[in-house]
């Protein structure tokens, strides 16, 4: 099967959508932009499903191992014989999986937005940006070259920026978009340096070759990168850590997560697409892509684990205290990505050891469905009540039955209740961590309970709790909103049954599905406890939550203020960078450097007026100067300087 005939269309169709709508949308397609964008994406989604079918079931596998196929590659910019940026298209299990996820979720969001964004002034722009994002994200996942991934990495960043700032006349949205971009940019800096180190030490930027060289402990490149050290740490560790920082920035891992909650200022479908299902998992994807290299350098893998676990727990705690539903979901996303990260971190390669890897990507896969479902549902809710705050909600189940059900499904899924998708993937992660590191397992288990608690806190607070009367409301929405919700709900229910290990594993070989009913008892019980607690506290309107939060006092307050990390950042940027670096730089430039330049002019002018007395207007003194000049010359040139 020749992929190249159509495969390029997958990323290019959204790009075409972007170009068409971006250039002409405003004037020609302002009404029809949604349909056009959706159609482009529909085709792309079908193509990627077809590709996935082809790859997984027809010709991806050779001798029981999934191959990476590169149907297309073009040298984009060559720096030297070895090092060049190529634009390529790689097909391997994870990229194909991501293709499907991205196009599918994006399609859902496109459809959902038809209703959600209707009547927006910049409707066509919105779809153009969605197209741009989808294109960039697809480009990212199909990258064959580490620099290609960096390019698309930046592009998704900018699309995210544009979409977060979509409501540009809201100052908070503007600030959020800025923050998101700058924080991730900071991480990208690390990524870039990591790329430079990896690329030059491996003498290639191509993923395949790079991984091959850096995992072969005989190769000169590997010896070079491991023996060279900087501050006593090997260059490989540096490089991988830096790359991971890049990934952590995009995936909102601690401590670079601060942008994600704020990013919820964007339109909710955008949050569903970018900040739940696709872009934020790019970090996971990146680590997965370079997994063999990470694996060979356990030090960096430990960092991945540590950051993942910490983020998972940390975010879950904060999520329990937030009252903005999108922020809760955002922290939940962060927490879930933490799961994926540490799952990668504890994984090995080959057979059972590779369970973490498979589990991580499996969770990525299922998470995409239920989290985007959650967001879309939340979007529907917000659309109805015109507020993000929990206090404005309550008892909505009678107004929006569909949303209610799908939200419940998603909550169950994320809490890891059988038979929803989240159950399967989470079980695998927990199992993998149980087998490799008990502490991680314990924390993960606790977090899982927290997850169930805060998700159901959300659920009960929105749909049960106090009965709010909405005097005027425009219903739950039309089909274009309901269809994506249903589809995603169905996926959430069924995706778990895919035996993911068959397709995606660290070494490309088949990995049997792991499902031990005995092992599952503990996590499910913990989750159920969490749900129960949430039900007790939030199903009916009562004073208990308030009482509990009061009794927790400082702890609650700290969590509510997100552990003051934002403030720390603000301090660093405002006080240190701006006041201690920027302001002095500007001051020095204006007063010292420019001052010197002006000073030269000033000194010249003052010398000029200081010596004006020579020209006294007295002819006799002129003659005296004349004579003195002669005498001086005579002394100097006759006697001193011959």
């Amino acid at each position, binding site marked *: 099967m020749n992929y190249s005939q159509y495969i390029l269309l997958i990323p290019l169709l959204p790009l075409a959508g972007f170009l068409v709508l971006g250039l002409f949308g405003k004037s020609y397609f302002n009404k029809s932009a949604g349909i056009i964008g959706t159609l482009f994406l529909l085709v792309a989604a079908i193509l990627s499903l077809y590709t996935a079918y082809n790859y997984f079931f027809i010709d991806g596998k050779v001798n029981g191992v999934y191959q990476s196929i590169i149907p297309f590659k073009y040298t984009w910019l060559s720096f030297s014989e070895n090092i060049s940026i190529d634009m390529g298209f790689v097909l391997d299990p994870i990229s194909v999986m991501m293709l499907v996820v991205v196009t599918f979720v994006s399609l859902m969001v496109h459809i959902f937005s038809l209703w959600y964004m209707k009547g927006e002034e910049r409707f066509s722009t919105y779809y153009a940006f969605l197209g741009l994002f989808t294109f960039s994200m697809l480009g990212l996942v199909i990258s064959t070259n580490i620099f290609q991934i960096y390019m698309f990495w930046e592009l998704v960043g900018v699309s995210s920026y544009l979409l977060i700032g979509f409501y540009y006349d809201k100052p908070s949205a503007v600030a959020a978009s800025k923050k998101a971009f700058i924080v991730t940019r900071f991480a990208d800096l690390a990524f870039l340096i990591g790329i430079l180190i990896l690329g030059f030490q491996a003498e290639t930027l191509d993923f395949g070759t790079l991984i091959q060289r850096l995992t072969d402990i005989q190769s000169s490149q590997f010896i070079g990168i491991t023996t060279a050290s900087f501050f006593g740490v090997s260059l490989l560790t540096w490089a991988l850590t830096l790359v991971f920082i890049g990934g952590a920035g995009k995936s909102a891992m601690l401590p670079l997560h601060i942008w994600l909650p704020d990013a919820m200022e964007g339109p909710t479908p955008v949050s569903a697409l970018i900040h739940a299902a696709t872009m934020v998992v790019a970090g996971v994807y990146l680590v997965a892509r370079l997994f063999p290299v990470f694996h060979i350098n356990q030090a960096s893998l430990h960092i991945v684990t540590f950051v993942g676990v910490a983020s998972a727990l940390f975010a879950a705690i904060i999520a329990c205290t937030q009252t903005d539903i999108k922020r809760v979901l955002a922290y939940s996303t962060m927490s879930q990505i933490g799961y994926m990260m540490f799952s990668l971190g504890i994984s090995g390669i080959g057979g059972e050891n590779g369970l973490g890897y498979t589990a991580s990507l499996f969770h990525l896969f299922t998470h995409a469905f239920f989290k985007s479902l959650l967001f879309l549902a939340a979007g529907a809710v917000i659309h109805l009540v015109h507020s993000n705050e929990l206090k404005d909600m309550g008892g909505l189940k009678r107004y929006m039955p569909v949303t209610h059900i799908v939200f419940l499904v998603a909550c169950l899924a994320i809490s890891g209740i059988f038979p929803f998708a989240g159950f399967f993937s989470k079980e695998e992660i927990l199992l993998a961590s149980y087998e490799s590191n008990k502490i991680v397992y314990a924390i993960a288990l606790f977090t899982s309970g927290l997850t169930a608690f805060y998700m159901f806190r959300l659920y009960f607070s929105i749909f049960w709790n106090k009965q709010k009367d909405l005097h005027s409301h425009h219903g739950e929405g039309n089909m274009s909103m309901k269809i994506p919700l249903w589809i995603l709900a169905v996926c959430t229910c069924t995706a778990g049954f895919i035996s993911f290990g068959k397709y995606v594993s660290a070494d490309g070989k088949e990995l049997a599905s792991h499902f031990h009913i005995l092992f599952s008892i503990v996590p499910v019980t913990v989750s159920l406890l969490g749900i129960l607690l949430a039900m007790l506290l939030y199903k009916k309107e009562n004073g208990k939550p308030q009482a509990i939060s009061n009794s927790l006092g400082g702890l609650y307050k700290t969590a509510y203020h997100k552990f003051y990390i934002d403030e720390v950042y603000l301090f660093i940027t405002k006080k240190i960078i701006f006041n201690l670096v920027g302001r002095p730089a500007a001051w020095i430039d204006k007063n010292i450097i420019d001052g010197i330049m002006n000073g030269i002019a000033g000194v010249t002018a003052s010398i000029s007026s200081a010596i*004006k*007395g020579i*020209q*006294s*207007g*007295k*002819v*006799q003194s002129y*003659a*005296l100067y004349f*004579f003195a000049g002669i005498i001086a010359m005579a002394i100097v040139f006759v006697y001193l300087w011959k």
Partner: protein
Amino acid sequence: MNEIPISHILFVSTALFFIGMYGLFTRRNMITMLMAIELILNSVNINFVVFNKYLYPDKLDGIFFTIFIIAIAAAEAAVAIAIIINLYRNHQSIDVEEAEEMKF
């Protein structure tokens, strides 16, 4: 007959030169300043004559030069005095310190 040594005469001419210089620098009367310049020129004349007579007696270069200097000094004085007269018309004075309007 004992000739006067050349150094004596040169001493005189040099003295004359500096006297003229001094006069030029210190006199406030413009006519006196002109006279001082004449002194300088005369010292030069003496120089020429002396050099010619003592060192290069076979040619008359120096003597001729002297004659020309005398003539030109006269011309110079004529023009300068004319200018001074005009200046007197404009300033009602021939004090050199009156003519210091332009400076710096």
